[in-house]
């Protein structure tokens, strides 16, 4: 498939040009190919950029060209850059993007020294632009009872296998398994261990607050080469078409359900009620959720699930008779 040509505004291109010159200056000379990759443009676009910069001409009052450069033999050299040899300062948005992310990172237990040093350097370099970043805060939950997060980080660093006792609330089960740790993920405010599970023979995610206990084993971790990372940018839980399609009706009190669980569709009904549809491979947790919601939620499909929920409620109620 051919990509349509990207539309770049004059401002965006100017931003790139003002970074391009100092990029080359700070490296003395640098390859066209490598530079194109760093700036996310094609070599042709890069050459257009270089030509544009080289063509800048000022009359004050006699015409002169303030910038001189060449890219002969694929090596860019800027021999004269005048006033734009240094990059432009960070904007408030740019400084905030990095500082907010770094402050979030520094909440994860483990060695934080590089993070703290980097925060200090960026704050100093950004100056006033760093001020607005204080108006954005991120609080993450890193359960660190018994140093779970820290143990995982050291197992990752040392390449060791872990033994986990892990709680699965939907099934109300404690499972035992050996896993080879791959990464620690912090997504939607929660911390997960991504690991190769020897029991399931696949990559699995484990929520740290559901780890009942953990032991670093004296066995080297051996993640198979073809083990693929979970694509965190696509959402951690991607339903498959073979999953069961569950439909729920939720009162205004229970609207949180549609925010909390990834839904396939959400429709507004009368009086603040919602209809939500979601896919799941295992419906046992939905039965439990229905009991929790009581009159604020109704499971409307599939029919087997509707009757299972009623049976669960009747059986539980019988215990109070």
């Amino acid at each position, binding site marked *: 498939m051919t990509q349509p040509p990207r539309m770049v505004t*004059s*401002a965006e291109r100017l931003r790139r040009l003002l970074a391009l010159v100092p990029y080359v200056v700070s490296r003395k000379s640098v390859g066209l190919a490598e530079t194109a990759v*760093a700036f996310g443009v094609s070599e042709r676009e890069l050459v257009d950029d270089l030509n544009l910069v080289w063509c800048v001409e000022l009359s004050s009052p006699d015409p002169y060209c303030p910038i001189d450069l060449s890219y002969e033999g694929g090596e860019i050299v800027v021999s004269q850059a005048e006033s734009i040899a240094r990059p432009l300062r960070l904007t408030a948005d740019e400084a905030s993007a990095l500082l907010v992310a770094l402050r979030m990172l520094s909440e994860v237990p483990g060695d934080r020294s590089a993070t703290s040093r980097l925060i200090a350097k960026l704050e100093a*370099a950004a100056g006033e632009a760093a001020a607005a970043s204080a108006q954005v805060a991120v609080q*993450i939950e890193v359960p660190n009872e018994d140093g779970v997060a820290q143990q995982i980080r050291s197992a990752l660093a040392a390449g060791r296998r872990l033994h986990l006792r892990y709680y699965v609330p939907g099934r109300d089960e404690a499972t035992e398994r050996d896993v080879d740790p791959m990464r620690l993920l912090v997504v939607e405010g929660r911390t997960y261990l991504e690991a190769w599970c020897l029991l399931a023979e696949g990559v699995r995610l484990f929520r740290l607050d559901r780890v009942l206990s953990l032991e670093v084993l004296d066995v080297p971790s051996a993640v198979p080469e073809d083990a693929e990372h979970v694509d965190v940018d696509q959402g951690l839980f991607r339903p498959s078409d073979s999953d069961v399609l569950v439909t729920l009706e939720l009162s205004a009190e229970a609207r949180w359900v549609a925010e909390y669980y990834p839904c396939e569709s959400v429709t507004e009904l009368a009086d603040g009620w919602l209809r939500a549809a979601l896919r799941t491979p295992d419906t046992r947790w939905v039965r439990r959720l229905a009991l929790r919601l*009581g009159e604020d939620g109704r499971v409307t499909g599939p029919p087997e699930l509707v009757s299972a929920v009623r049976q669960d409620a009747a059986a539980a109620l019988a215990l109070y008779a």
Partner: protein
Amino acid sequence: MSKRRTERLLSIVVLLLSTRRYLTADQIRAAVHGYPEPYDTFKRMFERDKDELRDLGIPLEVGVNSPLDDEPGYRIRRQDYELPEITLEADEAAVLGIAARVWQSAEFAGAAAGALLKLRAAGMEDDDAAAAPGIEPRLRTPEPAFGPLWEAVRDRRPVTFSYRAQGRSDAQRREVEPWGVVNRRGRWYVAGHDRARNATRVFRLSRIEGPVRMAGRPGSVTVPGDADVRELVRDWDWSPPRDHTAVLRVRDGAGLGLRRYALSTEPDVPGWDRVTARFGDVPWYADHVAWYGPDVVVLDPPDLREAVIARLKGVLA
């Protein structure tokens, strides 16, 4: 994309950076190629060019060279323009790589990429492949309200939006002086002063319906010196201390999520344990207990018992 416009803007930047004197619009026009002949057209283009440069964060300074000048001029002070020297150690560059990926598909993704580009332009060498310290945090901003609210907070402007509070079936108009945005447990909130209620309020972004509109000029919001937005959101999301005690009958081998936080567990009637646990408030704990269905019976206190029964009856209603 206009190549000529980019060239003109770049020329203005180079020109104004290399002058110590303020240059008037006419002097700029004389030095820079590409402005048209008719004076009115030139003035309009020049105004747009100035806005564009300021939007990029270029510090255009306005002033006069002597008190006798009646027309102000422009210049860019180098110390205001240039990113100060910054050198990163290898481990710092690795952490920077992780931080720049945090916003991957979110509101600040472009800003993070822009910052990285400037730091590379300052000489930073970052090799993504080398940076694998095994941690990958992500922040998402699926709420459309995030962008305008951040701008409002950054530029200190009041906003109006329509908000559906928890448990309400209709949305209400709010006018708010936003002090900050906070992500707690993966959800975005804005904290600030609610003008109509004349009180401090916290709003969850996912409950804002429709557009967020600016309701005042930049700089017109004053954030109180003692306002701590993190704390405001934490208080809003407050859960009561666990100072009540529940006695539960829990089926053997079941109710692990309840047993995990038990004060004591002892055998009860055959097939069941008696579990004592602490809880904060009845509705919250009743939700938690009802989750376990026929594997748990509340023995005490009576209000918790009634609350669980009400949920179960609600399912059958």
